């Protein structure tokens, strides 16, 4: 990077863009970047681009930079117009700052890669055994959980036996015997309730009524009795079918 402009090759492919070229030119002034003459730098760049342009196609960004630097140069040389913002001095300073930053990072990079690097200057162990961690579950359960679980299973799958707690009922068989016996001695229509035992009350009466109703239906099916009801929920009458009528 200490090449003088005269010895610079006219191959712009050697630079990574105009900033790179500018930095190379700035360094060729061999002064601290803070002290470089932006005007001299601009002249160097424009001269270089002119020479390069004759030799080959110049990339657009080099030409844009050239145009911008030509503008900067004229602005720096002409009397200052206070209306123009930013001022040419400010633009020049900004360019200088950018060059300083690029230069700083270029040097930092060079120092970084020159450090004692693993695999080049220092080495880690050639054949490490490696560490392996095998995860093992430590299963946990409490005795209470165990027996409670068994209780749940047993309760869930135990065959269920339902016992109906003491309840007075008249079975269908009893009702059948009773109704067929009583209906035989009567000739006229009678309310089904009249076949119930006289002392029947409460739950037993309800059970007797239901069973007697079923018995009446059964007897009707056998053709032994006939049933009559005027309308839904109206009183239900029952009478034996006389042999004569049949």
């Amino acid at each position, binding site marked *: 990077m200490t090449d003088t402009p005269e010895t610079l090759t006219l191959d712009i492919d050697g630079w990574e863009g105009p900033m790179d070229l500018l930095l190379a030119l700035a360094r060729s002034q061999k002064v601290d970047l803070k002290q470089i003459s932006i005007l001299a730098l601009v002249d160097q760049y424009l001269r270089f681009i002119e020479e390069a342009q004759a030799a080959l196609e110049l990339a657009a960004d080099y030409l844009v930079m050239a145009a911008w630097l030509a503008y900067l140069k004229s602005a720096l040389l002409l009397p200052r117009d206070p209306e123009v913002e930013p001022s040419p001095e400010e633009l020049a300073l900004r360019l200088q700052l950018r060059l300083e930053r690029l230069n700083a990072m270029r040097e930092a990079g060079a120092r970084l890669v020159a450090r004692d690097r693993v695999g080049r200057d220092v080495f880690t162990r050639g*054949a490490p055994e490696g560490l392996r961690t095998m995860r093992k579950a430590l299963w*946990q*359960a409490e005795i209470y959980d165990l027996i409670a679980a068994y*209780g749940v*299973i047993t309760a869930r799958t135990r065959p269920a036996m339902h016992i109906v707690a003491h309840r007075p009922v008249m079975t269908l068989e009893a009702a059948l015997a009773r109704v067929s016996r009583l209906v035989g001695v009567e000739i006229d229509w009678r309310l089904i309730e009249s076949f119930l035992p006289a002392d029947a009350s409460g739950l037993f009466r309800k059970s007797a009524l239901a069973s007697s109703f079923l018995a009446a239906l059964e007897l009707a099916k056998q053709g032994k009795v006939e049933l009559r009801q005027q309308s839904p929920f109206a009183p239900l009458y029952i009478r034996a079918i006389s042999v004569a009528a049949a």
Partner: protein
Amino acid sequence: MTPPDATIRAVEAVLFAATEPMTADAIRVHLGGIEVRTALVALQADYAGRGIELVRRGERWHFQTAADMAHLLRRTHEEPRKLSRAGIETLAIIAYHEPATRAEIEAIRGVQISKGTIDVLMEAGWIRPAGRREVPGRPLLYATTPAFLAHFGLASRRDLPGLEDLRAAGLLDPVDLAFETMEVAKPYDED
């Protein structure tokens, strides 16, 4: 450590970075022909009793982790984990009915059990295969292990509470069912 001389340091670095054991000759050639045998012996002494040792295998030398530290390289990390509900139910059935086949366990649970559940119980060391039932298909039988008794603080399987004990403890009126009843009952309560 005592400050080692240049040769010892060089041998140490070369052997450390080497990808395979090296003969003294190979090290010597590598270091430009200097004699390394004394350095090897000195290094071996330096590392005696440390977590790393310099060992000689046949003609070749290499560093290795000290033999008594080898267990550190393959380490099992134990994580406490709670047994799943399926796991604890399966374990309970095996404990109360052992030996039991998988089909028997499923019949009692009323739910199929996944292979993973049995695996977990085996991994925990609480059940073991206990032969086969001599019926068609010869299904595997499972039984509990001494580790099972130890984990649950039981002297023997006879220490498991019987059905009557469970009933007395209210464990046959499972909390879950009680909850369901309450759920159903709620709307009426709110009337």
